[in-house]
């Protein structure tokens, strides 16, 4: 009797495992060709209404039409971006669960906190969508008109600079720059959001600020002076503003990037299908127009390029974040 029972259990077990194996390989074989056959969930690790939400909606509108299935944008903010990242990391890797994430949730949060994921090993990069460069700005009334003048001032006395928040990318990039110079006395003042830092600079409460360029362009020549930008090339809308690079400074980040990622076991065929569709989206005139209006610079990288970039930046950011926390 006992033997019989255990045999039965064994038989049922084998059957179940066999079925599971069949259905798994079956669905994979099917999904590569017929993907997508149902709605795709595109998570953002931010609250609705912000830049990530906007990009997700513009992209999803296009991919909807291109792939013929609805893309639902789901907002999972919280935990410095880790809530959304963790949810997608543990979601089914079938191409129906993807995330539009950014430099912070992927390369800063996991290096500063124990959140249980590593962007390089737990995620597969699909494509980079955009990268918004930063600018270092001062109040026009300060009499400072070049980056060198600001740095000279910081060699003589303490200079305060604001950013959008402690441990966020603007802070990490600037802190690494200040450290690399060795002789600068610059104190970081974290604010809550870039707008608060701009307000404080306009009101002359701080000496300088490092902000996403779209936050400071409206004030350029109208209260604020932009000294340098972090992108490799000069910006179309700011042809007279030099880049850090041409001034001879190498930075560890060029701006706030956003991109699509999927759980690590998502099949490569599906990743490249998505990548192709996103590439098409970012070449579409209507999409380009919408990004332009929103002040978000498109910067497409394919899956391979994006993967390499994430590995590189994760490495560098880890080093800085660790030193900031100690």
């Amino acid at each position, binding site marked *: 009797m006992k033997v019989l029972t255990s045999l039965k259990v064994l038989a049922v077990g084998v059957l179940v495992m066999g079925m599971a194996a069949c259905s798994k390989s079956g669905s994979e074989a099917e999904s590569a060709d017929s993907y997508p056959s149902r709605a795709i969930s595109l998570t953002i690790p931010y609250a609705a*209404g912000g830049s990530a939400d906007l990009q997700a909606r513009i992209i999803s509108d296009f991919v909807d039409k291109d792939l013929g299935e609805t893309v639902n944008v789901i907002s999972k903010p919280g935990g410095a971006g880790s809530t959304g990242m963790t949810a997608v990391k543990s979601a089914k890797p079938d191409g129906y669960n993807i995330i539009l994430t950014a430099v912070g949730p992927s390369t800063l949060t996991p290096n500063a906190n124990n959140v249980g994921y590593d962007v390089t090993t737990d995620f597969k990069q699909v494509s980079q969508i955009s990268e918004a460069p930063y600018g270092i700005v001062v109040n026009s009334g300060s009499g400072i008109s070049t980056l060198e003048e600001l740095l000279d001032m910081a060699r003589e006395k303490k200079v305060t600079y604001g950013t959008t928040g402690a441990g966020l990318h603007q802070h990490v990039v600037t802190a690494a720059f200040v450290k690399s110079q060795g002789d600068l006395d610059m104190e970081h003042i974290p604010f809550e959001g870039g707008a608060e830092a701009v307000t404080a600079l306009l009101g002359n409460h701080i000496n300088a600020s490092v902000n996403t360029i779209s936050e400071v362009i409206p004030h350029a020549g*109208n209260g604020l002076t932009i000294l340098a930008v972090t992108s490799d090339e000069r910006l179309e809308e700011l042809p007279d503003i030099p880049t850090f690079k041409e001034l001879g400074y190498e930075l560890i980040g060029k701006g706030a990037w956003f991109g699509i990622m999927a759980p690590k076991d998502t099949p490569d065929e599906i990743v490249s299908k998505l990548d192709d569709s996103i590439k098409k989206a970012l070449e579409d005139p209507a999409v380009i127009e919408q990004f332009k209006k929103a002040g978000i610079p498109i910067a497409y990288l394919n899956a391979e390029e994006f993967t390499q970039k994430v590995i590189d930046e994760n490495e560098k950011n880890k080093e800085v974040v660790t030193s900031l926390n100690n």
Partner: protein
Amino acid sequence: MSNEFLAGLLFALAPAAILANLLGVGLGIVFGALPGLTATMGVALVIPLTFGLDPVVGFSALLGVYVGAVYAGSITAILVGTPGTAAAAATLLEGPALTKMGQAKKALTMTTIASTIGGLFSCVALIFIAPQLAKVALSFGPPEYFALALFGISIVAGVSGNSLLKGVIAGLIGLFIAVIGMDPITGTNRYTFGNANLLNGINVVPALVGLFAISEVLTRLEGKTDELRSKIGNSSIGLKASELKRNWFNLLRSSVIGTFVGIIPATGSGVASFVAYNELKRASKDKSKFGKGNIDGIAATESANNAVTGGALVPLLTLGIPGDVITAVMLGALMIQGLTPGPMLFTTNGDVVYGIFMALIVANIFMLVLGLGASKIFPKILKIPEQILMPAIVVLCVLGSYSIANSTFDVLVMLAFGLLGYGLLKVGIPLAPMLLSLILAPIIETNFRRSMLLSQNDFSIFVTRPVSVVILAVTITIFAVILVNEWKKRKAHV
């Protein structure tokens, strides 16, 4: 200016804009009234729909939702003691008591009229002195924010009910809860116990919903409701003209407070109504009338929280700086329309700016019309048997707190705060001071530490800046008066 003004007026009065505005206000009232569905969510939901619309039409819808939601948060606060939004937390001080006295209709009518007066006052301020007001926002640096938020804490005494000590205990619990999460200056984790859900701290809305709504439901489960219901059933008492008339100064003062608080980024409508209520109480000769259903209190809180709407648009439109989460979401909407908020907006798109101002006025008028109608219909909710109404409220609380961030953790937070609120009520500890410090503590802490970073740890930064020193002097005087009064009261008792 007059040409642009006229063009703006025409934009806002176009049929499409009027319709969008009306629908917006209606949707806003629904979002505001349901606990947990917030004004921010309503606005975020409407934004994708505005992509293809003309700027002023799109903004008519957004402003409609904004105004409607800030207003309607008070409806549920008054009727069932569960605030729909943080803006309505102060409404709880008088609203539910009025309902228990059978004066729900009166309270709702006052809410509608006061909200309209506050909203229109702030529109006028926005239209005529926005650029000048924007300078006020700029003069506020970290030391000034610190001083202002500290002043806000002095309100704890005004909303503590009978026992200052219990109010202070509630305030301290709120302060403790506010330090959970990442340190705002260094990013170090505090009291998160390795739980990533706590990195950004306790989300205020689920906490608020639990604290006030769940605790109220639990209290009502205890019974003794039949007697109450018969009283509530007779809720036909309306607002008397004399009650409105005697409040003219109160309404004006509260509107000024709301507009001012709205202009200062990062404060918000919840704080505005507490400040307005406190000022009313301070100016009043008979303080014993408060907390037991005082219609004057409703006039103060409601005009103040709706006056924030126009105030918050001042830094948004003139400086491109959002004053709260909702205006931050609107900033995105403006940019999608190809409008870059900031000093240049008035010169480059003056007609659109005036169109937005006019749309705000139209939204306030719709709010008045829909609200007065609603004041007659909504009290009927009270006729629903409590056995049905209370479970329905709990369901809404769960859905609402989940939908803020699609987070089951927030639902747990809501339930935990419900139990905490119930326990605190049982031992007679008031909840309002706790909420107040939950909102103000992060502003106090970050700005104190920012100030110290700026001054290289020199405390004189707080007393060498004119705005900061004036606010601090007022605050210290208020604290001194509170302590002296408390000391006298205790002496009299002994």
